[in-house]
């Protein structure tokens, strides 16, 4: 064992490595037990072939399945197993028991050890798989020394310092009876299948992990023609790796409502609204904006088919087909997910597998409410939270739409608000014989948002957001808005006219007054002049009479 190497060996199954906090213990034996068809062989094949693909040769010992079938199996998961064998990097040891008679005591299993050792040496193997070791018991049933001999095999395996994966069935507790679990395996993984609501779920549990931490609990996983895929149920603490980069929603007016530049990259955006409020169109706007920025978009449609989507969006100025096609650089990947019979777990895992396969910057889930409608509420909610969590963990921007029922009164019953960074609500406003779409931002973490309800219009040229008309009798939208505006315009014109008139009258009155005053003053002045003239005349007459009188008096003396 090389001390500079990490303590764990990756299995090639991302989720399993996560659950095992790195992988299987290096240079030690691990055990997988589970009933038939639970995925033991697939996990061990993946472990082995993944190692080979990384330059670590491997030896597979089969006690149950035909080596040819195993090779075929591995090829099916995309490993060139035949080539590995030809290149001497993979060796399969056929240890299927044959029908030998036994005569006498004292069988020894040294041959198994010899063969494995020989193969390990020849290939330089660093990984070893013993598949279906419980097959040994049936082969040597009734042999008194079997337990002792098997223990010798297990001891020997442990001493090889090769990272080993042993699989066994659950039948009659083989692993417990032969002390595999407590005695030799440093790591024990149990697999099982469960059927709930007519949907089968495969579950994995780490029973034991010596010398290292492991995640407790049962982890669902997916097993199909593409191999094994699993996502952890509850990852580590929420690693909030938030970006300060902002992205455009594709609708300028909406960006303005979201602090001017749109939401943060990597945030989780929920668009809630009743039927026909434009959720999908808005989501498509997000998608197209991302494509135009050169980002990769994974559009997961739960209801509309791809063709329908392309057609419907092209009618409002969208061009999904362009971005999905070669001209758009295949930046938009559209995946309809409509398997109703699929379990929630399977949905989640299929989505996450697509995400890890395509590596998108933005994921659209349209509409997520189709989950909650179809499945039991709590489970669906939990699964949705996990999905959003996982997407966030991968720094993927998520745009999810939620269909609100008309009877919901516009109240969301997803109840996932804790996970939502930006929550946009779309609603219909009906009145005056027409329907208008309204949009408002309920919350947006870390953004200064507009608290105004705005009007959202879908036109041939795309989407626009308009500030509604706020007039004398409240807020009005749509055509009514124009009607009301016109009405008010007339009133204004009329009032203006009246005002002008009043002002004119007022001005005229001033003029009249001034004229009157001027006239009065003139009159007053004229009168004063007249009176002055009279006074002078009277004074003159008085003086002349006085003069005459004094002349007479002087003459008499």
């Amino acid at each position, binding site marked *: 064992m090389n001390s500079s190497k990490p303590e764990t060996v990756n299995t090639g199954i991302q989720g399993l490595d996560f659950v095992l906090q790195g992988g299987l213990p290096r240079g030690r034996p691990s055990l997988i037990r589970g009933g038939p068809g639970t995925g033991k062989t697939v996990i061990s094949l993946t472990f082995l072939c993944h190692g080979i693909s990384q330059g670590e040769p491997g030896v597979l010992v089969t006690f149950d399945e035909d080596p040819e079938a195993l090779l075929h199996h591995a090829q099916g998961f995309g490993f060139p197993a035949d080539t590995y064998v030809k290149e001497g990097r993979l060796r399969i040891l056929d240890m299927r028991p044959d029908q030998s008679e*036994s005569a006498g005591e004292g069988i020894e299993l040294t041959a198994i050890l010899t063969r494995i050792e020989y193969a390990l040496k020849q290939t330089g193997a660093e990984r070893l798989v013993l598949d279906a070791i419980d097959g040994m018991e049936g082969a040597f049933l009734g042999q008194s020394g079997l337990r002792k001999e098997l223990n010798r095999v297990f001891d020997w395996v442990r001493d090889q310092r090769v990272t080993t994966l042993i699989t066994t069935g659950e039948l009659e507790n083989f692993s417990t009876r032969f002390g595999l679990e407590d005695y030799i395996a440093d790591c024990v993984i149990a697999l099982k299948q469960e059927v709930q609501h007519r949907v089968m779920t495969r579950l994995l549990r780490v029973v034991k992990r010596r010398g290292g931490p492991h995640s407790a609990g049962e982890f669902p996983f997916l097993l199909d023609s593409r191999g094994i895929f699993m996502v952890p149920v509850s990852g580590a603490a929420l690693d909030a790796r938030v970006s300060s980069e902002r992205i455009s929603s594709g609708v300028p007016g909406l960006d303005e409502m979201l602090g001017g530049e749109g939401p943060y990259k990597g945030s989780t955006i929920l668009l809630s609204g009743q039927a026909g409020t434009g959720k999908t169109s808005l989501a498509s706007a997000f998608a197209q904006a991302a494509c135009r920025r050169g980002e990769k978009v994974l559009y997961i449609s739960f209801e509309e088919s791809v063709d329908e989507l392309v057609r419907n969006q092209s009618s409002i100025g969208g061009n999904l087909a362009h971005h999905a096609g070669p001209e758009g650089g295949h930046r938009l990947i559209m995946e309809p997910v409509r398997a109703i019979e699929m379990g929630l777990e399977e949905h989640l895992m299929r989505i996450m597998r697509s995400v890890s396969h395509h590596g998108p910057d933005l994921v659209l889930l349209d509409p997520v409410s189709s989950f909650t409608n179809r499945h039991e509420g709590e489970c669906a909610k939990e699964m949705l939270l996990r999905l959003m969590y996982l997407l966030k963990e991968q720094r993927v921007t998520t745009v999810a739409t939620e269909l609100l029922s008309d009877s919901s009164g516009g109240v969301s019953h997803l109840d996932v608000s804790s996970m939502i960074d930006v929550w946009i609500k779309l609603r219909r406003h009906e009145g005056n014989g027409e329907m208008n779409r309204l949009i408002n931002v309920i919350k947006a973490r870390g953004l200064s948002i507009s608290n105004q309800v705005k009007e959202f219009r879908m036109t041939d040229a795309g989407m626009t957001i308009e500030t509604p008309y706020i007039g004398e009798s409240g807020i009005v939208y749509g055509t009514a808005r124009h009607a009301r505006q016109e009405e008010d315009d007339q009133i204004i014109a009329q009032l203006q006219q009246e005002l002008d008139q009043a002002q004119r009258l007022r001005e005229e009155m001033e003029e009249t007054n001034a004229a009157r005053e001027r006239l009065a003053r003139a009159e007053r002045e004229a009168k004063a002049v007249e009176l002055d003239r009279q006074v002078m005349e009277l004074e003159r007459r008085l003086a002349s009479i006085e003069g005459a009188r004094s002349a007479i008096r002087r003459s008499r003396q």
Partner: protein
Amino acid sequence: MTKYLLRLYIAGMTPAARRAIENLEALTADMATQDQELQVEVVDILERPQLAEDERILATPVVVRKLPLPVRRVVGDLSERERVLVGLDILER
């Protein structure tokens, strides 16, 4: 005349291997007649692991009837002669 080729695989000279060799030699000596000849080869797989691989051997000691075909095999220390004879399909005198 029937010619038997019996190959005994052992993994080191263990007590069981030694008993198997003794039992098989005694058997061949007893069974040899004018009509049948029994030839025994002993192979130690510790020395020739590739043979163990080719023969797909799991447990030792094991005696394999290579000739005449079809191949038959019997595991154990061969202490139960009747079962050895039945297992290898060797005719008794």
